[in-house]
């Protein structure tokens, strides 16, 4: 399941909903990304996105993860709008019988999301506002899944 929302999310409630009524799950991995204040340089973060394409990309990414690993459940929740330091930005949850698939899939979802989901962060601080630049490390993180796919 994927959701794009301004509201915060509750990881406990999300995992409880995902587990409800089933006892076949063995491993649940979750990732939360949060706004860092960067030693005072960031006072507010604005998250812009491309409605329509965002949902399409997140759905595509989730389907790709489910095609690669035997997941019993998966969830991506991404927030938009104005956020403050410490606020949650993104939640990814994966569930599988065994931990390796859950860990790999969660990491894959984050790596793909970082390089392909149409979100843009603008940070506001004492020095003014600036659009966050894409991290070249994210491109490298994305590439490792392509290599892996080709060699395994």
């Amino acid at each position: 399941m994927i959701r794009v929302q301004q509201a915060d999310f509750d990881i406990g409630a999300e995992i409880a909903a995902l587990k409800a009524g089933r006892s076949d799950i063995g491993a649940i991995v979750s990732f939360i990304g949060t706004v860092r204040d960067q030693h005072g340089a960031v006072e507010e973060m604005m998250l812009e996105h491309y409605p329509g394409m965002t949902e399409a990309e997140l759905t595509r990414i989730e389907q790709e993860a489910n095609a690669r690993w035997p997941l019993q459940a998966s969830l991506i929740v991404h927030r938009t709008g104005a956020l403050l330091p410490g606020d949650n930005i993104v939640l990814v949850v994966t569930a599988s019988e065994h931990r390796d698939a859950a860990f790999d899939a969660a990491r894959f979802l984050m790596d793909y999301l970082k390089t392909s989901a149409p979100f843009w962060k603008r940070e506001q601080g004492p020095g003014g506002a600036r659009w966050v630049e894409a991290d070249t490390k994210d491109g490298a993180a994305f590439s490792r899944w392509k290599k892996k796919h080709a060699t395994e």
Partner: protein
Amino acid sequence: MRLLYFAWVKEKAGVAAEEIDPPAGVATIAELIDWLKARGPEFENAFARSEVICAAIDHAHVRHDAKIAGAREIAFFPPVTGG
């Protein structure tokens, strides 16, 4: 077709969305960018580093050599920074 701009591409171009009807010679994303740049200094500026601009046709990422024929919605934006 409908054009959308996001993040600093939108800020520099000074427009978020517009309807356009490019001439027949504009067949690819790269040619559309060249055509847009010729419309004025804001667009010239927005697309100055055109190699870093990302494009999507009907909600799917495309390269600059993608054909635009049949597109309903084309979007231009900087490299994404979500997550």
